[in-house]
């Protein structure tokens, strides 16, 4: 049980996951005060949390806000998945800036006891012959740009943690999907016609954003000090997902993927390299330790999350209350 009167700082509070984590933490009795930093305002109404609008590169302001707040727990969510809200180069730059500024500033806080960082199962990589369902003890060998970004964040946080003597935990998520989460995989699967690898069509797992938020709250409360995989039970292949969503499957064999990527980009669903890797090599992980360590585990199965992905409305049309013309 966490000690009461704790100060919690959330980097990336403006995003869907950050807002949801903040919303859950507001109801936690052990949280005395809650502050957050992001370039965009939170996506839901928060009653107790204090939000600071600061862009990741504004190093001085970040250091000022973080050191003044002096948190006990830092939840680092400021990670930009390539082609979610920024192109891969911009996403890498923003993620690096945020990691350097926020983790660096947190290291100056005397009260800091725990750092929990957002990571992903992309960190294990999918090189040929690599284990199909890696657990937390598997070798980190990222083979995509996003995987390398996540490995960099974990490495930075671990180095800082060892230097100042605080616990560092990493939550390694399967691809996160939710109604308002800017997921390149979700966007891709929701296209009318969806290309998939006819020769491989490997299985992958996902996780819903509400389960992600619950895992962060548990990790912060328990002062997580190790990496934990958070993966929804079950798996699905791209073809199965396409069939469940009643989309048109487009089987591809290899070289035609270049054309498919271009068309997908024009259709508004660019495919980053880690999603392309998922379509060719799959993405699974052993999430068995989440319940054992955190006391919570994803409740929505991969198939359920995929079904929900197709049931979420694209655009909500609200008719005008008063006709003006």
């Amino acid at each position: 049980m966490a000690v009461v009167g704790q100060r919690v700082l959330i980097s990336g509070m403006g995003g869907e996951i950050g807002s949801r984590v903040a919303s859950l933490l507001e109801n936690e009795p052990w949280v005395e005060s809650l502050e957050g930093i992001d370039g965009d305002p939170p996506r839901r109404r928060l009653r107790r949390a204090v939000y600071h609008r600061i862009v990741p590169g504004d190093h001085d302001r970040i250091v000022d806000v973080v050191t003044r707040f002096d948190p006990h727990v830092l939840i680092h969510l400021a990670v930009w998945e390539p082609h979610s809200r920024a192109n891969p180069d911009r996403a890498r730059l923003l993620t690096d800036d945020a990691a350097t500024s926020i983790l660096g500033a947190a290291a100056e806080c005397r009260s800091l006891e725990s750092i929990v960082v957002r990571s992903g199962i992309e960190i294990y990589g999918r090189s040929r012959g690599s284990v199909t369902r890696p657990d937390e003890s598997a070798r980190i060998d990222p083979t995509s740009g996003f995987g390398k970004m996540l490995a960099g964040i974990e490495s930075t946080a671990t180095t800082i943690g060892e230097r100042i003597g605080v616990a560092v935990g990493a939550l390694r998520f399967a691809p996160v999907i939710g109604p308002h989460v800017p997921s390149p995989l979700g966007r891709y699967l929701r296209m009318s016609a969806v290309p998939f690898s006819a020769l491989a069509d490997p299985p992958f797992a996902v996780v819903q954003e509400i389960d992600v938020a619950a895992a962060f709250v548990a990790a912060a409360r328990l002062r997580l000090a190790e990496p934990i995989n958070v993966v929804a039970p079950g798996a699905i292949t791209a073809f199965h997902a396409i069939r469940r969503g009643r989309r048109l499957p487009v089987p591809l064999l290899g070289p035609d993927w270049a054309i498919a990527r271009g068309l997908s980009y024009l259709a508004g669903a660019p495919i980053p390299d880690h999603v392309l890797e998922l379509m060719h090599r799959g993405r699974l992980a052993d999430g068995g330790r989440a319940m054992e360590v955190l006391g919570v585990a994803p409740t929505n199965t991969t198939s359920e999350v995929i079904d929900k992905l197709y049931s979420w409305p694209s655009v909500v049309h609200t008719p005008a209350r008063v006709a003006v013309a």
Partner: protein
Amino acid sequence: MDRLADVVSLPARRAASTLAAGARSTFDNVVDSSLHMVDDWGRDPDFVARVWSMSRLRWNVAVNGHRRLPKRAGALIVVSARRFALAPVFAALSIGGAVGRPVRFVGRPDIAPIGPVMQRLGGLLPRADEIAGALRAGQLVVMGADATMHPRAVGHIDHRLVGAAVAAGAKVFPAATASAPFLRSARVEIGSEVRADRGRRGPLAELELADALESAIQRLLDELGGPVTGTPLDWLPLSGMGAG
């Protein structure tokens, strides 16, 4: 009179009804609506059911000793294998049919399109950490000894893969497989659990367990005996009982 006609039936009629029943079952499975999902390791239960139905058109597999296997916990079953016979695959399908729970097999390649197809059938990569992960998660895993040309000989057993069971604390069972190339009958005989020496603290435990498994499987193969091809060729000293 109708009853008499049912009892006294010609072999041709029996064969035709068996084939018809098999074809109907296969057709039902193929046209049945798929659930469009795979399990945590990528095994597709619909695909497995279809392959199992089709394989029963060729093989009539009898599984014995499956009641020795744990009901829920993980266990490693090491089977004898003949070259080109895909013994671990068919043993996994047969044992899965007998115990009514998913059974995985070791030995899928990581190259498309063969690897993904075998993954749908429940294939695991031949890596100790992959096998240990499945055993820890309470899965039944079938692993083949090295394939041999001789149907009554057991090949070498990789102690590193068997070590996965030691690491995971799972039970290990030997099993012998036998099939007649020109007949439909095939058999999987699962023996009693083979235990690692608790006195060993290092890798010798795995080596000795692999050796004990080889001996146990050889005993099971010797006990199986019987015809190999179902033809008079079995009486020649080239294979089966006449071979040295």
